[in-house]
């Protein structure tokens, strides 16, 4: 197996900003271990093969640097969970411990 432990999955969940429950960790750790084990088959591929990141044969798509209309503020804010004074209202950024 790929040796992904329950603690590893808890760490991944923290990195990915997922407040997973203990019960989920029990299920996910086995599943993710099995999946990573399966996909690790790509390890057989020789190192000297070049990587492919994307398949579109073009680079540096440019356009004239011209000002264009953007989303009106009220439209941009219309889906916000909370808005105040024409801005997104967000929870405080720093935790108590800082």
């Amino acid at each position, binding site marked *: 197996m790929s040796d*992904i432990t329950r603690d*590893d*999955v808890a760490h*991944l*969940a*923290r*990195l*990915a*900003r*997922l*407040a*997973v*429950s203990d019960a*989920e960790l029990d*299920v*996910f750790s086995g*599943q*993710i271990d*099995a*999946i*990573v084990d*399966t*996909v*690790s*088959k*790509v*390890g*057989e*591929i*020789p*190192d000297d*093969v*070049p*990587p*492919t*990141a*994307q*398949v*579109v044969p*073009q680079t540096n*798509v440019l*356009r004239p640097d011209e000002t264009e209309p953007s*989303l009106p503020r009220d*439209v*941009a804010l*219309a*889906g*916000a*969970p*909370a808005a105040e004074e024409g801005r*997104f209202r*967000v*929870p*405080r*950024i*720093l*935790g*108590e411990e800082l």
Partner: protein
Amino acid sequence: MNELIDLDAAELARRIHGREVSSVEVTRAHLERIDAVDGPAESGVHAFLHVDAEGALAAAEAADRAIADGTAASALAGVPIALKDNLTTTDMPTTCASRILEGWRPPYDATVVTRLRAAGLVPLGKTNLDEFAMGSSTENSAFGPSRNPWDLTRIPGGSGGGSSSAVAAGEAPLALGSDTGGSIRQPGAVTGTVGVKPTYGTVSRYGLVAFSSSLDQIGPCARSVLDAALLHEVIGGHDRNDQTSVSAPLPPVVEAALAGARGDLAGVRIGVVTEFSGEGYQPGVLAAFTDAVRALGELGAEVVEVSCPSFAYALPAYYLIAPSEASSNLARFDAMRYGLRVGDDGEHASDEVMSLTREAGFGAEVKRRIMIGTHALSAGSYDALYGKAQKARTLIVRDFTAAFETCDVLISPTTPTTAFPIGERADDPLAMYLADLCTIPSNLAGNAALSVPCGRSADDGLPVGLQVMAPALADDRAYRVAAAYEAAQGATTPRIPELRALEASR
């Protein structure tokens, strides 16, 4: 059942434009069909997450007026269509079948939606999918699965099972899907419908909620190859709002579908991918595929076997690349600008609100993939996992390049089995992933591929799909071969299954 729902989009368009029937009548017939078979969510087809009857009838009236004035916007003006619910629409919610976006109204239309509206098509509503298009059955939808019209106890494929089941059930003659690993083609195969993944970059992704940006591709769902081609030409072509949009002209897919339907494949070389057979393939699927190979030979094609040994790496590479890109793309669901917010009580800081929101808003498969992607991209694993998956992608591209040196198109079963029972693979992600075995290589390489109905499996009577793969920007080749095969098959299978039990229970 109203006979209008049984007609092709091309035939509906002919009648609408010939003033034999109005777009309003056609639209109303489909809305009535939706009323008759789609609900309730617990037992109906459940193809739709949202139906906009009022908007659809208004669009139909506008199409009728334009046709009366001689100013019809396109050949498909007045024809109804269903939209996968990961395409943004300003007049309907866009949820991606996720709690995190429940009820969200996007501030702009996807380019494909803009083009449909401009062409006078009539959007009926938004179709169900696996959450954020991650899955092969629609069982990962936060709002419950869609059901296969051929057997309501079975999956309609995924992720685009809402679009496939809507088209198969006669709730819409056309639909749009998105295909990242097979999410248009595999649902097409298991519902006896046509599904096309165009060449990567030839249909704009602007307004498609991103899952795996280097793989995602929007494409048509239909009941005939010609209908898919007609829709393909409406949505395709360069879009400056999508940086990966290809500027090359769209291949002549409608012309190819019409040419193919004449039934002559003389001079066409077709390669059977030998790797897509054997263990794990349902006997009835393989038998139907063998019949298709024979039929293609009878149409004049030269059929040869080709080996693509690196396709063995496609599934593992996909389940590294797609989760990696997803883990990055889905970071935008941060509870700040739109969508769900949980725990905003003055006590929790932003990162805690983010974690609580994502925990509450995402389903199990989305969480699994985000964590796998996070793992594959982390410093200790990047080279061994994500880096190697990108190398696998190179080998798969090389296999395709070599195969297309000797063959015009490649064929395989679209998926190894027919529709499996709802629940059968729900708790086994690896078993679920196998449904995408044959479709993934074309996403990784970016070439065109489609699924066309291939009769029914002798072991269970359920639809089988034939996959036709063509080189990048040669989508027309796949259309030609599929149209020829479709025409040769004739009307041996009813295209819309009986749903009498469901209708009677109303």
